[in-house]
């Protein structure tokens, strides 16, 4: 096994997802099969190969730091599940 139920539970925590025990087992089996398949990558020696994160030779594309027209507050909030006084509203984050 490349990955155990415990690993998958930890990844779920990092991913902000929760699963039932049976879902966790199914996912572990499927992820294990995919990681097993990905093992083919280890057949290659890539010690002297540069990584390609992006195909275009672009780096740090900047624009002038000028204010331009943007979404109104009303439109920006138009899809919010909950809002109050022009702000997104979330459950309490800190105690007290």
């Amino acid at each position, binding site marked *: 096994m490349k990955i155990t139920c415990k690993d998958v539970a930890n990844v779920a925590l990092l991913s902000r997802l929760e699963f039932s025990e049976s879902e966790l087992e199914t996912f572990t089996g499927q*992820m294990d099969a995919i990681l097993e398949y*990905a093992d083919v990558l280890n057949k290659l020696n890539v010690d002297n190969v540069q990584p390609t994160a992006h195909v275009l030779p672009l780096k740090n594309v900047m624009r002038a730091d000028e204010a331009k027209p943007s979404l109104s507050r009303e439109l920006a909030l138009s899809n919010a*599940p909950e809002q109050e006084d022009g702000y997104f509203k979330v459950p309490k984050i800190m105690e007290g």
Partner: protein
Amino acid sequence: MELFKHTASQLHEKLVAKEISAVELTKAVLGRVDAVDKDVQAYITRTSETALAQAQAVDSKIQRGEKVSVLAGIPGALKDNICTKGIKTTCASKILATFVPPYDATVAEKLAAEDAVILGKANMDEFAMGGSTENSGFFPTHNPWNLETVPGGSSGGSAAAVAAGEAIWALGSDTGGSIRQPAAYCGVVGLKPTYGRVSRYGLVAYASSLDQIGPITRDVTDSAHVMNIISGYDAKDSTSINTGVPDYTKSLVNNIKGLKIGLPKEYFVAGMDAEVERAINKAIEQLVALGAEYKEISMPHTEYALSAYYMIAPAEASSNLARYDGVSFGHRVEGNDIIDMYKKTRSEAFGAEVKRRIMLGTYALSSGYYDAYYLKALKVRTLVKQDFDKAFEQVDVLITPTAPTTAFKLGEKTNDPLAMYLQDVCTIPVNLSGVPAISIPCGFAAGMPIGMQIIGKPLGEETIIRAAYTFEQNNDYHKGFATLGEV
């Protein structure tokens, strides 16, 4: 012939000659949607009223004697991951089921500027993750050539709509084959442009270094027309290429004398349908008879591309999809505290494949595994790209099957994610390398369409369009029309 069976360029001629009106045409296609979409299920959202208003405006322009563009008044569909201002854009996900974008994607703006008529938003695999449209959070789409088979994916709704006469043209998006594979399965033409050729502004992100928007059409001519409209630099997409856009219709030339074709032997994988292989070999023979030169070449890292992709794309997805947290838009499930709200929201509203890729990506990026999986995959990506660079030192285009088989039955691969991933084996290297490719119909196996993929150099769309057009003009595969189960 019914109006909905024509191509955009044919219908444009009829509109400007005043043989038909845009309203008449739009009603004809809407009527077709009414008649067949209960079986095909290509659309998530229909925009019939605004479509008729758009058509009416085009008729007024034509009446006033104004010149109109080739897509003016021609009804089409947009994949539901392309943002449309004021029109629901769901990504086929329950998490965005009620999301109404406050802005238009750049491609939607460009189409509106040309007076294209939009009939609605097409079904897809949730967040474009999948190859069959069965991962839609709402319902699966059916292949118009055989309703028991899948239309491919993830742009399955777009391809099925065009094949069924429910749209004359459509836009899809392609991260690992999501335009080309459904185009192949549905017997239509799908073009994935060079990465950066078409603005991604307003395309809901899946894997940002791979995603690209492109046309799905009935023939190569329409593909060139749509490319003319949607291509070009956009300051709102920092990865868009700042270089001029040629007139792609100038490449609609029935002549490939001297064109050098490469046939990469590694693409003819184990498990490939013999009929598919035969159709591609026959097509190559025909292209050679038409004056092309052909040689077999080797792209030795092809077998690693799929594994690299299924580390890179989920890694990017796990980051891109972190924004769905129930705070600023989309679905929310209340929880005991904010972390609990995040977890409940995401667990309830994401489908299984999306969760699988978020988990896989999070794992590949997590401490202790980053070097072994993600970084290694990025290095392999370099090798895959170098295969293409070397191939294009020898040849002008590469020809491969678009997919190893024709459309498979609904439900056949849903329990085996890896089997589903293997359908992408011929299309994924193209996304990893950023090069353009087109899928065109090149035959049938047991009544189901076969797709041929023509791959070009970076910004080599003109060459692949010319090769595709020449093949198309010397065959009539594109003239068949899906039967929708009718005898």
